[in-house]
């Protein structure tokens, strides 16, 4: 198939980005697919070279991103407010809600000095990337979101947290967020 590439010609000043360079929806779509392929192949190569260490590397990258994002949010020790703020940080591309089975009264479970809450991630760019590139879920790339959540929670609430993947599906993934009270 012959592809037509439209050349953009114009004046470029360092302080001004011409609006023509913004591209239209098809350019964004192309870019998204290329990025998904890049990220997918990077993740699979990382796993091939580093084995299970790949998860730790990606987790660390996500955690750093989470800490950076969390710095922009108000500090709180209220888990529900923290989760609302996290929802804003993660945006519509990582849309999640608290989830509980019917037999459970509250969304949160207190267990010693820990609070446990189940989160249902409905929209997820990581999942889309994995499916775009034919990679299995629960791999290193899922650890990016894992790290991101933990980093953001730690930053917003100044406590230790962890996120476990309970179940992954093509439409939603269930994760358990555990926060440990008592500081870092």
């Amino acid at each position, binding site marked *: 198939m012959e592809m037509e590439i439209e050349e953009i010609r114009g004046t470029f000043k360092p302080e001004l980005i011409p609006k023509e360079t913004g591209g239209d929806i098809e350019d964004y*779509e192309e870019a*998204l*697919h290329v990025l*998904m392929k890049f990220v997918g192949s990077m993740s699979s190569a990382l796993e091939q070279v580093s084995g299970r260490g790949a998860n730790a590397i990606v987790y660390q990258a996500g955690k750093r991103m989470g800490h950076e994002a969390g710095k922009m949010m108000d500090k709180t020790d209220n888990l529900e407010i923290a989760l609302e703020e996290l929802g804003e940080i993660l945006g519509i*591309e990582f*849309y999640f809600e608290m*989830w509980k*089975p*019917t037999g459970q009264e509250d969304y949160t479970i207190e267990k010693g000095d820990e609070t446990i809450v189940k989160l*249902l991630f*409905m*929209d*997820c*760019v990581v*999942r*889309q*990337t994995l*499916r*775009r590139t034919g990679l299995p879920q629960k791999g290193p790339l899922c650890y990016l979101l894992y790290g991101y959540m933990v980093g953001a929670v730690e930053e917003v609430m100044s406590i230790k947290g962890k996120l476990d993947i*309970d*179940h*992954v*599906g*093509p*439409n*939603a*993934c*269930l994760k358990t967020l555990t926060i440990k009270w008592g500081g870092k």
Partner: protein
Amino acid sequence: MVEITIDEDACVGCGSCVEDCPNDVYEMNEDKGKTKVVKVEDCMACLSCHEICPAQAMEHQDIHVAKRLYIDRKVNDVLNRII
């Protein structure tokens, strides 16, 4: 509220959905040798059952349908014209 419909004519009774569902939404109807929905209220619409069902015998209604930006719009447009 999620609603799940099982197409009993299509269901082959393999029980894959029963095994795969993390919230035990399905059970086998031993008399009919087909799957039945027993705990629809615990369905979180992960749709693992859709993926594993060899007969595509189930349908979920009133669920959050996740974005699928990996699907090529051009391919979708062509499919929409055909189907």
